[in-house]
């Protein structure tokens, strides 16, 4: 939460500027576009004054010609302040500081992964330091193995402390620290091993040089300037973090965070950053193929399209299964192909109904759903049911910041500005909250919670209803036991004391009651005049988008199929075996003569296909998806694959091309026809410039102007330079030619500015550092709270959970690495995915004579699963946990009841 904005007039090198008086001098200079070097300061991590690189001269008044050396990041802007960046003393100090930093830096730029996008290189040049006077030995360190994501090269370290400040202070990590002292300080783990924090990948961007680098990039390293980049949206959960996808030689090389001041800001989670590797998998479907005599044989694109046209033409009975992983455009064209009545959201009804409930609340409610980054501004949090760190990781990171707001008030009372991170942390220390977590099992955010409550989903909902009742006694009364009553009173008081209370819930426990109790509670707070926020977590990247255009779910499709509804089913980017149990899915496929599957990777569903089309992942496709807050965002393909892979909607458009109802050809036209059918989605047209947008006459290049080797890279096949592919679907080119200035924010493929080659060139794309992008943060929110909507409280309240004798209710346990199907197939992520297991409460296990490591057999819809037992004291009695979406637990529908007597202790 920022202080009130007071304007101030400052003189920088004798030039007057009107600036925001609540900022420090470094931020101010950078926001003015001035170049002032820095290391330890980071717009999200703020000031600590360790590196001393941003020194300037500060003058007492106009008459003061001498000035005093001052560290800009620790100095508040004051009215009529006079400073100099250019003064020789300041220059000399900054160059000297770099010279000192370089005494132990190995100068190994040519072999360093950071070379060419290194903040240290940029800052060194900026200060003008050149010749070395240090002639002694450099200190050296041993590097550590830090797991599959991060490479460690400590000798390059310039000790800016950003890594530990991000990892420990910002992200709550426990296993990275600074050791030893003086010029021997060491940043690493207490011993070699996998970095455990879910946000470790940000070290790659936070580190100003090559100490922490992307290990997945290292496997197929490419310099930044040789990458083709595209603005994209992460598809690994529902939050819609903005990313930059990079490619060379047809393979995806890395993901970086793409700054969006409304959504992810500067950071990403490790699933989002490292989960891309499946795109380069050998299991990718590369060509259309047709099953003939039980084997798949490649067929040409035209033949595939022709065959599908024939199968689907006329009044054939069709069924289309959409996907929450696929874009709105692809889902829409499938709906057009099969007809609205035959189009199904490819998710189980148990999930679909919850998403519909969320959409209804988002659309018609009067509570604000804050954007991800705005979550940080709330000062009291109550989480109902959601294991946020695993279901929406970046939301957990935002909540960790929100938890410090209330304690931060004591710093504000001492007139410490928010940007002074070192000072704020000294005052705030470890205090957090108010922060309440009611979940079915222990979660990682418990460590910052004021109080936790572990119980069955129905009881979580009851607690929510109870708190709502404490706030508004017109609501249905909920009487819990004494402990619950006390907790409800405490939470109600905390929420009412806060200025901005935030309620978090989601679909992960398959409980409609939780969603409703969260809505009631938020509404009750809002009615008490509180600036209340309500965030729902939904399962997948386009869960909301899909459910906006589909109102039938898989259960219904399976039912229909049994009755021979269609002889052809078209399945879009969706492995149904992940969604539904194996037996019913097998039957579903037996019910269809033609199974047309559009997908990226071979999976159990493609095995059942009669025709397979190779489609693009988010890296090879354009499209629009809608995140959990209802924000529509566009993603763009980074390259055109050399094979037959293309956007699903492109395949569908080809199939539909002879159907005169749909003249749409390119992305913009498809969006137009989508809006015709769904006028409430109007906004998606304007979330990014259309394909005919030009800066002057120029397109926006996906490649930086230093891109090298393009005349040579395909010389093994052809020495003449072929015509670069055009892109009729976007205003970007696939080459280095084009507009060199600031592109519109939604189609900014990479960050670069003269003198700023690292990710920190982002400063130059922002209106003020850390603030929104020039041209606004990309994406459009489809729903805003309706102030006038009437108070619609939910009335039905569940009964408290009562355990069944000898039976356990199985709830899903989410794993950031594993519960998302595609990222889990990336080699790096795969190393972090747990083996399937079943989790039991200690008492339940004891009663059933089960101990840790025993093998338990559970039956789900006739299918037998054998799982080792893990004991967890945090689970409530009568509740068991099963990892969601792992190989071996995929397709299990939650919640389910099991008996605990089927133990095979062998």
């Amino acid at each position, binding site marked *: 939460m920022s202080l009130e904005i007071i304007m101030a007039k400052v003189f920088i090198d004798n030039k007057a500027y009107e600036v925001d008086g609540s900022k420090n001098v470094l931020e101010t200079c950078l926001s003015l576009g001035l170049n002032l070097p820095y290391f330890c300061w980071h717009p999200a991590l703020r000031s*600590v*004054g*360790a*590196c*001393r*690189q941003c*020194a300037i001269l500060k003058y007492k008044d106009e008459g003061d010609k001498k000035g*005093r*050396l*001052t560290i800009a990041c*620790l100095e508040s802007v004051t009215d009529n302040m006079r400073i100099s960046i250019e003064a020789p003393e300041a220059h000399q*100090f900054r160059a*000297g*500081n770099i010279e*000192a*930093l370089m*005494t*132990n830096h190995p100068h190994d730029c040519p072999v360093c992964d950071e070379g060419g996008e290194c903040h240290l290189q940029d800052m060194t040049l900026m200060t003008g330091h050149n010749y070395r*006077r*240090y002639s*002694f030995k450099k200190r050296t360190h041993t590097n550590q193995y830090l797991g599959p994501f991060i490479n460690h090269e400590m000798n390059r370290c*310039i*000790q800016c*402390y950003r890594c530990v400040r991000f990892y420990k202070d910002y992200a709550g990590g426990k296993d990275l620290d*600074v050791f*030893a*002292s*003086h*010029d*021997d*300080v060491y940043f690493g783990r207490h011993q070699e091993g996998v970095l455990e924090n879910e946000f470790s990948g940000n070290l790659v961007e936070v580190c100003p040089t090559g100490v922490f680098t992307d290990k997945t990039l290292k496997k197929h390293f490419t310099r930044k300037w040789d990458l083709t980049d595209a603005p994209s949206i992460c598809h690994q959960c529902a939050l819609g973090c903005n990313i930059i996808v990079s490619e060379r030689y047809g393979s995806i090389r890395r993901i970086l965070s793409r700054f969006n001041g409304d959504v992810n800001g500067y950071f990403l989670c490790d699933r989002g950053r490292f989960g891309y590797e499946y795109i380069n998998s050998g299991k990718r479907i590369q060509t259309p193929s047709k099953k003939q005599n039980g084997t798949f044989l490649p067929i040409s694109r035209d033949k595939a399209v022709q065959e599908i046209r024939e199968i689907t033409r006329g009044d054939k009975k069709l069924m289309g299964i959409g996907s929450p992983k696929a874009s709105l455009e692809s889902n829409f064209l499938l709906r057009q192909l099969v007809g609205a009545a035959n189009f199904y959201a490819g998710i189980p009804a148990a999930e679909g109904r919850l998403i519909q409930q969320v959409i209804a609340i988002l659309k018609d409610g009067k509570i604000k759903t804050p954007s991800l980054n705005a979550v940080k501004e709330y000062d009291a949090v109550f989480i109902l049911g959601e294991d946020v760190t695993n279901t929406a990781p970046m939301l957990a990171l935002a909540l960790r910041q929100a938890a410090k707001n209330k304690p931060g008030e*004591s*710093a504000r009372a*001492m007139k*410490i500005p928010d940007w*002074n991170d*070192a*000072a704020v942390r*000294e*005052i*705030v*220390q470890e*205090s957090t909250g108010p922060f309440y977590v009611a979940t079915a099992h222990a979660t990682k955010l418990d460590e910052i919670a004021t109080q936790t409550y572990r119980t069955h989903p129905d009881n979580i909902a009851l607690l929510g209803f109870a708190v709502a009742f404490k706030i508004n006694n017109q609501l249905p009364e909920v009487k819990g036991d004494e402990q619950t009553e006390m907790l409800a009173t405490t939470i109600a008081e905390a929420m009412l004391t806060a200025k901005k209370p935030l309620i978090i819930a989601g679909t992960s426990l398959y409980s409609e009651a939780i969603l409703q109790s969260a809505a009631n509670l938020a509404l009750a707070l809002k009615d008490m005049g509180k600036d209340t926020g309500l965030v729902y977590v939904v399962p997948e990247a386009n869960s909301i988008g899909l459910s906006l255009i589909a109102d039938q779910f898989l259960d219904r499709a399976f039912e229909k199929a049994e009755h021979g509804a269609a002889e052809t089913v078209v399945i879009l980017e969706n492995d149904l075996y992940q969604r539904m149990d194996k037996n019913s899915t097998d039957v579903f496929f037996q019910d269809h003569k033609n199974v047309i599957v559009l997908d990226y990777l071979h999976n159990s569903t493609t095995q059942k296909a009669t025709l397979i089309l190779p489609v693009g992942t988010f890296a090879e496709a354009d499209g629009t998806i809608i995140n959990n807050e209802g924000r529509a965002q566009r993603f763009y393909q980074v390259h055109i694959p050399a094979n037959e892979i293309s956007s699903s909607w492109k395949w569908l458009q080809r199939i539909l091309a002879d159907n005169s109802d749909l003249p749409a050809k390119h992305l913009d036209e498809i969006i137009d026809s989508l809006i015709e059918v769904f006028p409430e989605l109007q906004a998606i047209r304007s979330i990014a410039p259309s394909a005919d947008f030009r800066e002057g006459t120029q397109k926006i290049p996906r490649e930086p102007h230093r891109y090298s080797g393009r005349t040579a890279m395909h010389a093994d096949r052809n020495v003449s330079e072929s015509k670069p592919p055009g892109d009729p679907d976007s205003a970007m080119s696939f080459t280095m030619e084009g507009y060199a200035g600031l592109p519109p924010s939604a189609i900014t493929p990479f960050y670069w500015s003269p003198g700023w080659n690292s990710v920190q060139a982002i400063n130059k794309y922002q209106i003020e550092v850390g603030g929104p992008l020039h041209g606004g943060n990309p994406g459009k929110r489809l729903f805003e709270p309706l102030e006038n909507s009437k108070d619609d409280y939910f009335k039905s309240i569940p009964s408290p959970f009562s355990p069944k004798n000898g039976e356990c209710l199985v709830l899903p346990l989410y794993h950031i690495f594993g519960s998302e199907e595609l990222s889990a197939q990336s080699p790096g992520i795969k190393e972090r995915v747990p083996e399937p297991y079943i989790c039991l409460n200690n008492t339940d296990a004891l009663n059933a004579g089960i101990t840790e490591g025993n093998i338990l057999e559970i039956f789900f819809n006739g299918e037998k699963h054998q799982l080792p037992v893990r004991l967890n004291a945090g689970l409530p009695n009568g509740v068991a946990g099963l990892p969601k979406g792992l190989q071996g637990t995929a397709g299990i529908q939650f919640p389910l009841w099991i008996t605990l007597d089927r133990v095979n202790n062998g």
Partner: protein
Amino acid sequence: MEKPLTEHIRNDHTWLTLKEYEKTGGYQALRKAVKLPPEEVTKRVKDSGLKGRGGAGFSTGMKWGMVPMGKDVPTPKYFIANADEMEPGSFKDRLLLEGNPHQLIEGMIIGAYAIQARFSFVFLRWAYHAAAKAITGAIREAYEAGYLGENVGGSDFQLDMSLHISQGRYMCGEETALLNALEGKRANPRAKPPFPVVSGLFGKPTIVNNVETLSNVPHIIAKGADWFMKLSKTDEGGTKLYGASGRVKKPGLWELPLGISLREILEEHAGGMQDGYELKGVLPGGGSTDFLTTEHLDVAMDYTSVAKSGSRLGTGTVIVLDDKTCPVGMVSNLEHFFAQESCGWCTPCREGLPWTAKILDALEAGNGKMEDLEVLTFQTHYMAPGNTFCALAPGAMEPLQSALKYFREDFERHIHEHKCPWK
């Protein structure tokens, strides 16, 4: 000449027990103080002119006066004695800790009462084993006698005290690094503001005072500000523990009126130079103060006068450099210490000090170049006050910059003769 701090300290390595301390009038000041309003105690200490004896010389009463008082202030407040004496050449607090621990504890309790602290700590240098025993014993006695605990000296003031033995870093002597260390964190200095008086240990208002400073407090309360003022030869009140080490006839530690001249300390109390040695220079207040030379012998050893002559009173423990000792070697030794003790937080200190130490090594080994003197001069500017996060590196530059000024010839001889002329 009155010696309130040391007059009862015996020379037999035993400490004054509570009974013995009480016989000297001990804990009477405490009984008096807890009957006064806390603000009045602070006022009396302020009026006495007592300045911090740790080296910075800030008014103790003023510091106490900055602690938020009243009902609606953050609590618990903390009161800490900085007994982490690690300044090279300093051994003054050790005498007080080992010889008269109750004097310190009484001062701490009075201070804690003045700011209404609930907890207090003695943060002790790890190597001071005898002091640790004395403090442990004295705290136990003070509890038993009711000077610590629920009703301090029969009042309704409650104070607990414990001893924390440091893990041993010079950095811990910096009061905010001390707080971090006490919290179990890295001993890095903290950002200021907020100052510890408003946000110190665990984010609560905290006073950190030096041992010698606090040992003065009972006497000020017992005998009054005027009496204290008159002990001194200047307008900065009190006595001071002065020490001398190096090749003097009688190295030692003496309690003398504040503001006595350097000459008196060296010639009268330390007995002059050993036979065959000439005085070349002194570090007047420990390793991190500027050299003074023979021309400064008549400087009054108080905070203002020493500052005027280009150095600092610091801890008041004089290190004597003689003519048969290499000044470059002496500075090199000091810079190695400071380079090793840098916490590694800010660039100039972390990188500049080891570089400085390596150049001095090279000079000593006969591998110096004239350009090295430029780099050394650069380092003294680079690590000037304000350029670094705390005072460690600027302090480390004080002996170097003054050595370059007074003993430049000796540096140049190392370069021209390709060896240390003293070896």
